[in-house]
């Protein structure tokens, strides 16, 4: 497959004889400027476009979050009217899930999965481009609703509220189109990942020597393929209910509003794991590198990830504990959700024991990875509490749930994304990000995040439902909400510092060289940023940490002289 790149092979060396070694019917001129991005099929450029676009949407979603928090800062606030408020949390949730976390993971996967397995591109480079542009289309259609009437039925878009009888207008349709467009994007992308990973691994890289990050991208893809068709069907039925007179979700026409919830959560719960599993992968790369130790229990980590994915597709109705459902059903979904605690616990211990007895270097990627560990744990514990359905009867749809899933999605997914960006930025740009700014950013984010969301557990326990645009001066609600709002701005400052860091380092960062962190995987074998064809020579892989093997090989050949570590730039 990779050999097809005949036309781009450069033959500039003067020593070559003046006889043509290759014949080509035409030589395409190298495209430059913006067209080199728009028309690209290079997995690295596509990866960067995914990451940049996702970060832009993240900023939009973040601004929406801050508006929500401003409105809730004091009781009976009138900053946002109810319609705008509902639009803000609907757009925030939808943006963060469909336009930020899922695509940025696709971005990391695009850039690094091929590099880590020693491939020269993805299996289907053109499909890969298509996948990105479907994602952009989804984002643009969704955000265009700002001009035509934004969606207000929450990211869960429950029927019958989302039916045309209660929510007419363009907004909910835009949401449906977003689901379809980003769905096609992810499906195409997922198939591409599976084929690439299955077929294009370097010589010697059996399944048992694949980097954990690649495992998680594989599992992420399989889960997308299982979950997405279901929401696509669900959303299509909603569309026909809204516009073509069907009654799939309308009880007065013989339909069933709970059908929507089943279809939505059959997708929606796996979606949560789709968002977090590549994060697991990033953490599993970063922890070994910065503790100078192999991952503890490679097989257990890979197997635990797979079993989380499997169980994750069987527990969707734990989001429906308060619906009119028989107790036996509730019990089944409670036990299923409890079971997920086991592989999750296994992973947390494996990660901690990866650090244990290591030589831990406190670089920014490691700080974010450790931040992830400490906060994801909290989300996991509150998850078990919520899975106990009688307790969920009290806490469901309250601020306790908002706190829980932000511990998983921000403390978990977003911190792993930050870790990944600090870790891989040198590879993608050839320059290091500032460690000083990175550490400031980390501490602002860590502290701000916990101020924002820890107190929300108490709000929920005290009876504050989510998705309310205002509240009266009840008990401690005013004070606690104010604390949360202040925290969200501290978190915002932390994020801003990282954005500044990323922007400034493009020009000012220290030159990274091929392997600034002394990494373990193949992306560190090649220059930063890598050439178009990635690898001139694909090394043979003999373990999970091929680059460590290569370093040792070099060291043993060149004698003790090499033992000194490379100076890690900052």
């Amino acid at each position, binding site marked *: 497959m990779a050999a097809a790149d005949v036309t781009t092979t450069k033959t500039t060396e003067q020593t070559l004889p003046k006889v043509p070694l290759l014949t080509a019917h035409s030589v395409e001129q190298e495209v430059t400027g913006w067209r080199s991005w728009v028309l690209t099929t290079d997995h690295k450029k596509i990866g960067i476009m995914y990451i940049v676009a996702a970060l832009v949407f993240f900023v939009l979603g973040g601004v929406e979050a801050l508006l929500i928090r401003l409105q809730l800062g004091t009781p009976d606030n009138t900053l946002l009217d*109810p*319609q705008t408020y*509902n639009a803000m949390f609907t757009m925030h949730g939808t943006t963060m899930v469909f336009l930020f976390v899922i695509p940025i993971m696709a971005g990391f996967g695009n850039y690094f999965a091929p590099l880590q397995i020693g491939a020269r591109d993805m299996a289907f480079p053109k499909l890969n481009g298509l996948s990105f542009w479907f994602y952009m289309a989804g984002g643009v259609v969704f955000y265009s609703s700002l001009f035509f009437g934004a969606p207000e039925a*929450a990211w869960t878009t*429950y029927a019958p*509220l989302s039916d045309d009888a*209660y*929510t007419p207008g363009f907004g909910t349709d835009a949401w449906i189109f977003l689901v379809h467009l980003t769905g096609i994007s992810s499906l195409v992308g997922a198939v591409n990942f599976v084929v690439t990973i299955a077929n294009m691994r370097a010589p010697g890289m059996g399944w048992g020597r694949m980097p954990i990050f690649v495992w998680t991208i594989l599992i992420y893809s399989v889960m997308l393929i299982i979950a997405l068709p279901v929401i696509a069907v669900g959303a299509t039925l909603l569309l026909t209910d809204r516009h073509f007179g069907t009654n799939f979700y309308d*009880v*007065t026409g013989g339909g*069933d*509003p709970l059908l929507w919830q089943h279809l939505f959560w059959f997708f929606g719960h796996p979606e949560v794991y789709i968002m977090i599993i590549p994060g697991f992968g990033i953490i599993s790369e970063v922890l070994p590198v910065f*503790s100078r*130790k*192999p991952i*503890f*229990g*490679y*097989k*257990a980590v890979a197997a635990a990830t797979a079993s989380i994915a499997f169980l994750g597709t069987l527990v969707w109705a734990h989001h429906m504990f*308060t*619906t*009119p459902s028989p107790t036996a059903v509730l019990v089944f979904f*409670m036990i299923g959700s409890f079971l997920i*605690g*086991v592989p999750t*616990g*296994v992973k*947390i*211990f494996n990660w*901690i*024991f990866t*650090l244990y*007895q*290591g*030589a*831990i*270097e406190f670089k920014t990627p490691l700080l974010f990875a*450790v931040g992830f560990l400490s906060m994801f*744990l*909290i989300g996991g*514990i509150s998850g078990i*509490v919520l899975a*106990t359905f*009688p*307790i969920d009867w*009290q*806490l*469901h*749809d309250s601020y306790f749930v908002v706190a829980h899933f932000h511990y998983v999605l921000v403390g978990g997914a977003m911190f792993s994304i930050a870790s990944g960006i600090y870790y891989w930025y040198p590879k993608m740009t050839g320059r290091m990000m500032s460690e000083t700014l990175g550490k400031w950013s980390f501490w602002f984010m860590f502290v701000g995040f916990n101020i924002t969301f820890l107190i929300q557990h108490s709000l929920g*326990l*005290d*009876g504050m*439902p989510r*998705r*309310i645009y*205002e509240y009266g001066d*009840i*008990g*401690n609600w005013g004070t606690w909400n104010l604390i949360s709002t202040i925290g969200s701005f501290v978190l915002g400052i932390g994020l801003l510092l990282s954005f500044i860091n990323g922007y400034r380092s493009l020009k000012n960062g220290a030159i990274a060289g091929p392997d600034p962190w002394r990494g373990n995987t193949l992306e560190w074998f090649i220059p930063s940023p890598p050439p178009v064809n990635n690898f001139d020579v694909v090394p043979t892989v003999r373990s999970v940490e091929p680059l460590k093997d290569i370093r040792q090989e070099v060291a043993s050949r060149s004698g003790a002289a090499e033992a000194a570590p490379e100076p890690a730039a900052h």
Partner: protein
Amino acid sequence: MPAQSSVGRLRQGLIPLAAAATATLLFAEPAAADWISPERGGSPNADAIHSLYMILLVVGLIVFFAVEGLLLYTLWKFKASRGHEAKQIHGNTKLEIGWTGGAAVLVVILAIVSFAKLGEIRNPPNSDPAGFRVAAIAEDPGTNQKLPPNKQGLHIKVTGYQYGWRYTYDDGNPATQDPYTYRDLYAPTQTTVLLSITSSDVIHSWWIPELGGKFDAVDGFNNWTWFKIPADKAGVSFRGQCAELCGRNHANMTASVKALTPSEFDAWLTAKRTELDQSAKDAAAQRAVVEAGKELK
């Protein structure tokens, strides 16, 4: 393996830590109950949910302190600046089986505890003898209805609509129209009140935290729950609000339950019924006038 000994030492350190955490929590409970646990006090099911939550909270905090403690210790002990070498360990099967088993056991314990508490939360008790006189309740097959052992209780139908609650009090007399109220639900103490919750439009969710969990109001479905307010809460008004996004005014869809003594409730119900009868009579009279007018034409 050298790994073992220091792991062992670690384990010894964690046990007292966990014990200390538990102790702190148990002692702190009464004082801090308002911000670390769900509301309770209005009904035995809310109390049972509260105590189940406290058990999970204690277990959760032990796990939290143990794991975060281990993490912090590891970070402190094994930082590179101490100048030691990383041990190239790839895993430890015994340890890994150990924590997998440990997690599994914990999960089984939690499941058993939850089941033990389930009856108390799910199944309504009988009304007290001093409670409001209650009638037999008809079974509602195909739903999640649970009846008290004697199958008697006060049945109130709760209907959510954009944006309010309507309550219909089943007075056991099929011949007359049942009394109803909006927003404020009146309920007798010491009496098992069974709620069948539904909606006439989008989905809402009934939630009075001090009286137990929330239950969705879905058009076309009856969602059953119950509460039984203790005698000493007569005169108390329990607040709550809709917990499922139902449109722009979701935030203002509040509700309250006003607890009356059984005799107060009896008087209130009678007054309500008279009021209803009176308005029915007035309506009939008015209709007669209208009909008469039609005939005149």
